[in-house]
């Protein structure tokens, strides 16, 4: 069962990568990430988020933290859409600079 799902997931991701790739760079990157399912994706640095130096760059780590939070819904079913894009917030310029 898991093997079938994993195979389907890889195929779906490969399709997405092909669309973004003009010259194949992104497709190759995605394929590399998929060949090591438990490893962080290439170029995906871990984000320190909880004050304890805990990296939260992968799906499972993020899921654990987000599960305990009451995330606001966006009035749209996830997966289908697309939803309306968000507004810009001026403070994000400083927030991005802090990550440098």
């Amino acid at each position, binding site marked *: 069962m898991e093997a079938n799902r994993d195979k389907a997931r890889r195929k779906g991701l490969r399709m997405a990568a092909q669309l973004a790739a003009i010259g194949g760079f992104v497709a190759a*990157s995605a394929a590399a*990430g998929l060949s090591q399912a438990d490893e962080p994706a290439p170029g*995906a640095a871990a984000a320190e988020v909880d004050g304890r130096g805990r990296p939260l760059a992968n*799906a499972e780590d993020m*899921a654990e933290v987000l599960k305990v939070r009451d995330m606001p819904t*966006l009035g749209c079913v996830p997966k289908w859409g697309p939803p309306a894009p968000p*507004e810009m917030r001026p403070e994000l*310029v400083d927030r*991005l600079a802090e990550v440098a």
Partner: protein
Amino acid sequence: MTTLDLRREAKKHPLVLDGLDRIPDEERAVALDNWRDRMASEYASARVFAALVPQLMRAGVSHGQIAKVADMIGQEMNHGILCARVVMALGGDPEASFPELRDVPTHDDVAPVEAVLRNVISVGCCSETVAVALVGTEREQAGAPALREVLDRILSDEAKHARFGWRLVAELAPTLDPKAKERLGAYLVAAFEHQISFHAPFLRWPSVSDRAISIGAVDGPLNWQIFVDTIQTVTIPGLERYGLPAQRAWQAAVASVCVS
């Protein structure tokens, strides 16, 4: 709350899904709920593409690109009707409340090219690129041939929408000066926070059987994994190629939404 009623449209071309008698009622009900919600969301997203048209005109984008986006309005509505046909095939009524119809921001604080890039990145390079990965996965697991055909049609359109986004970024991002690229990077923090919020409901949804997936039920953990994989291995490196600080923006977004 406004209701979307696509009964008349669905009845014009009824869909028959083979093998439904082998699916337990509770699993069929889970899939039915998903297709009904999806019907309304797909249909409602037509307004997002409609709002992009005047923005693209202001940005001086070519007629060919604008005409493609105008076509996408109808494609999203057709997806709603395709979903309505599946709802009927599963024994339900294709009638649902619209999701909240939020306005598409015009981003008047920046020049038209930068403004439209904000929305196109959010829609094409994030939402629709993730949708291709999700629907592509779903299509692989679909059981009945008629359902595969529905998903093929949706997937084909979502691929066009994502490709449009990436092509426009390839065309316009190199024209931005370094300050504009940094501002766009800051916007990416909002875009990624929005993506995480949008997909976070997957975390509350359980895992389901292969049988349920084969008729369109959503497996929460699988879909969450696909979302994160796509953003990290496709969207981020794709945007970084054009000098946009997508990796830093993702880190800032993750830090923002995950701090407990």
